[in-house]
């Protein structure tokens, strides 16, 4: 029951031995298909501090979504240690909120009812009803206050994703796992949504893991860009982004920003060349 987290913004994470919100150590994932074992990920090790915004950047098939799903407890790792908030991950952890490429709003529920869905599932209909004010507060935060009673198909793609943000936040998760959440949106809306997400994360001090294959998106949002390479997916390098927050989209034209982008691109290229020339041991 995540109830005790409703009041504490920074949960048990600080008190663990490592102090990390997310702790990944030597995690490997293999898939077996038609009797053939595919080494998809790892070994990967990564520590994410509470309140940190980390972007997982890499080409398709580099296992970044696999890693995110393992952290979120949707997929078991083949070996290695995964801890969220100090506890070993077995199933979806209490403190995790997730968002996917599609908004996935249920068509038969109003926007507000969609936002309340996590509470309805974890604590029942009555608790969901009691949290109505909280849902409206969140909808107001993303500028959807006037659309609470609308059906999802009356909303644009960007508005649907904003509703999905509210749904993710309704149970006050301390760790946000975002799997290319704005990948299906057009460039302009996407940039707008990124600013919004950064604002919300800064406002509420949440830890975020953001999967993307856009270099500039990763640099714009993250405190740390973890660059991954494919076959098998592993960490090619890390770019620490030391740009003041909150960041304005204008920052993307600045020289330091461009330098970070170049750094990330070089890491991607090195990883990509290594993977395609077949010098990996697997």
């Amino acid at each position: 029951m995540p109830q005790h987290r409703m009041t504490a913004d920074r949960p048990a994470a600080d008190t663990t031995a490592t102090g990390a919100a997310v702790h990944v150590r030597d995690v490997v994932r293999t898939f077996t298909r038609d009797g053939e074992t595919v080494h998809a990920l790892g070994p990967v090790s990564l520590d994410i501090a509470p309140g940190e915004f980390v972007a997982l950047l890499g080409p398709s098939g580099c296992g970044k979504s696999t890693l995110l799903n393992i952290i979120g407890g949707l997929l078991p790792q083949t070996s290695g240690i995964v801890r969220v908030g100090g506890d070993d991950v077995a199933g979806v952890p209490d403190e995790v909120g997730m968002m996917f490429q599609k908004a996935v709003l249920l068509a038969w529920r109003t926007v507000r009812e969609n936002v309340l869905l996590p509470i309805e599932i974890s604590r029942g209909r009555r608790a969901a009803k009691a949290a109505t004010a909280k849902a409206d507060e969140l909808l107001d935060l993303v500028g959807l206050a006037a659309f609470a009673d609308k059906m999802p198909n009356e909303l644009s793609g960007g508005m649907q994703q904003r509703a999905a943000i509210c749904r993710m936040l309704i149970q006050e998760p301390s760790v946000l796992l975002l799997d290319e959440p704005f990948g299906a949106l057009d460039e302009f809306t996407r940039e707008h949504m990124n600013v919004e997400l950064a604002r919300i994360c800064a406002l509420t001090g949440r830890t975020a893991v953001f999967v993307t294959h856009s270099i500039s998106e990763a640099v714009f949002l993250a405190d740390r860009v973890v660059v991954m390479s494919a076959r098998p997916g592993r960490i090619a390098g890390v770019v620490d982004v030391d740009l003041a927050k909150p960041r304005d989209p204008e920052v993307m034209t600045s020289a330091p920003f461009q330098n970070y982008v170049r750094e990330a691109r070089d890491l991607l290229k090195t990883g990509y060349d290594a993977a395609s020339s077949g010098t990996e041991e697997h």
Partner: protein
Amino acid sequence: MTQPATATPPRVAAQPDKAAPRAKAAKPLMERIPTPILLTAALALLVAVWQGAISLGWVNEYVLPTPWDTATALWDVTADLFTGGPVFDNFLISAQETLYGLLIAAVAGVVLGVLIAETVIGRRVLQPLMIALYAAPKVALAPLFVAWFGFDMAPKVVMAAVIAFFPVMVDTAAGLAGIDEDEDKLFKSLRATPWQRFVKLKLMNALPFVFAGLKSASVLAVIGAIVAEFLGGGEGLGVMVKTASVGFALDRVFAFVILLSVMAFLVYLAVDLIERRVVFWRQTGFLPSES
């Protein structure tokens, strides 16, 4: 404007003066005629051919009543229906048989569909049995139902239900089987129990399919009830059709068939209206499209 450039010149040349550039030339003639006019014309054509076939001596009048005789019979039958005559009594019986049968078909169809889609026993045992039963000519069971349930409404209700529940069952099972991966992932990430996943996700997604099955069932229930009346006797419009047929009053047979069609249509319409209320978030067409 999306037409390839090469296609444009000959079209312009073919109709030099009529092709006003802003005219909606794309809409063909048949699309522009209003539906009521089109349907009336089609009906008039049918009646004309019908009358013509008799007038020209292609068909004997004893075999095919004239449109006028049919209309007169239909008038008599309708008048009888609305003044509470024997047609009304029999209509009421047939309508009740149909509705009870449809109700049983709806419940049984949904329950069996859920069992087939959601349980191992349903999938491995129930499904093959049901397919075998589906293949069986259920009309042949009518004498059996008469022997079991007598000559009252019961055997007709059972026949209506038996014939009507298959599409409900099949469509319910099909609706439950189609899972949206993203929605499934969302429910997993929210740690939903299998029951929550079933009630709050799968069942809701299956509803349009269930209603498509119910629409097919509404028409089949009428057929089941009438066929059972045909074969089992007693009371009902089916019996009246049979009586008229035996008395060679074919104009009355035609009138009853039209009346029965209207009845079936009304039941279908009722299901469609309920669907619009229940599945409000998704407007499906009038015809069942899922099955």
